[in-house]
């Protein structure tokens, strides 16, 4: 442990603002990106599941090609 007290840790020898905003912004961006990725995954899954439910009725096909 380098620091003697919590307040000293927070102050960072007068550079607290810079250190903590650097880490704060970084955390915000990185976590935000993670959250977006997870939410996107959920959305795609939901969409596919909705479609699967809809398609549970027997599907008829769109082909009527003239086959030789």
């Amino acid at each position, binding site marked *: 442990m380098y620091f003697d007290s919590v307040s000293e840790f927070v102050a960072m020898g007068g*550079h607290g603002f810079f250190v903590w905003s650097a880490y704060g912004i970084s955390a915000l961006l*990185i976590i935000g990106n993670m959250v977006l990725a997870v939410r996107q995954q959920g959305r795609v899954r939901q969409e596919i599941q909705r479609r699967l439910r809809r398609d549970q009725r027997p599907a008829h096909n769109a082909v009527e090609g003239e086959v030789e």
Partner: protein
Amino acid sequence: MWKTLTRWYHQLSSPRYFYRFASAVLPWLMPIAVLVLLTGLVWGLVFAPVERYQGNSYRIIFIHVPASSGALMGYIAMGVAGLIALVWRLKMAEVMLKAMAPFGAVLATVSLATGALWGKPTWGTYWQWDARMTSMLILLFLYLGIIALQSAIRDPRQAARAASLLAVVGVINVVIVKYSVEWLNTLHQGATLKLVGESSINDAMKWPLLISMLGLWLLYAANVLMRARTEVLNRERRSGWVATLLAPGAKE
């Protein structure tokens, strides 16, 4: 050995196996990445000694350097994926490329933000047109260009191919930019950075730095896997295996 490698290659280039692989790895990778990153950061923030000339502001290094190098490596990796996608039309390369762009852009932003916040106490300004800062800014622009192009094209396969071409062209450009900007820059700020150059960096600072770097890269890998997995699902939504996987009531 070679055989195992080629088998892996074929398996991972099949969307279905990739999905299984990613689903198996992610539950481990994610917590490990977070743990490693936190270890490095806490070590660096709480336990590492103060730096002689910069005081405690130097502690920004533990996020700044991992993010900067991650942004750079990430872009090169994207270019490689793009080349593979263009030449061999490998679907998984397209998927990976698309998955790599967002975190890369985030890392470039983090690098710029932390660098700026570090610059104020050390150089007395948030921003200067120093070579590294300038080329990182351009790298961010390139990332954003790729994201913009991808989101402008509707068809996911077409979007990925377009982004591949742009990424490959971009890598060539990054190399030239690096040299050109270094040449341009007459007020090289290198001297300040040398404080932490190889000779003077001590182990008490080096280890936490290396550990947070490892942690951030693992996190990057986890994020890419996660996004790639989503993209695979989205592209293969019509195939049988996705249907059984996500069928109502099915257990994964």
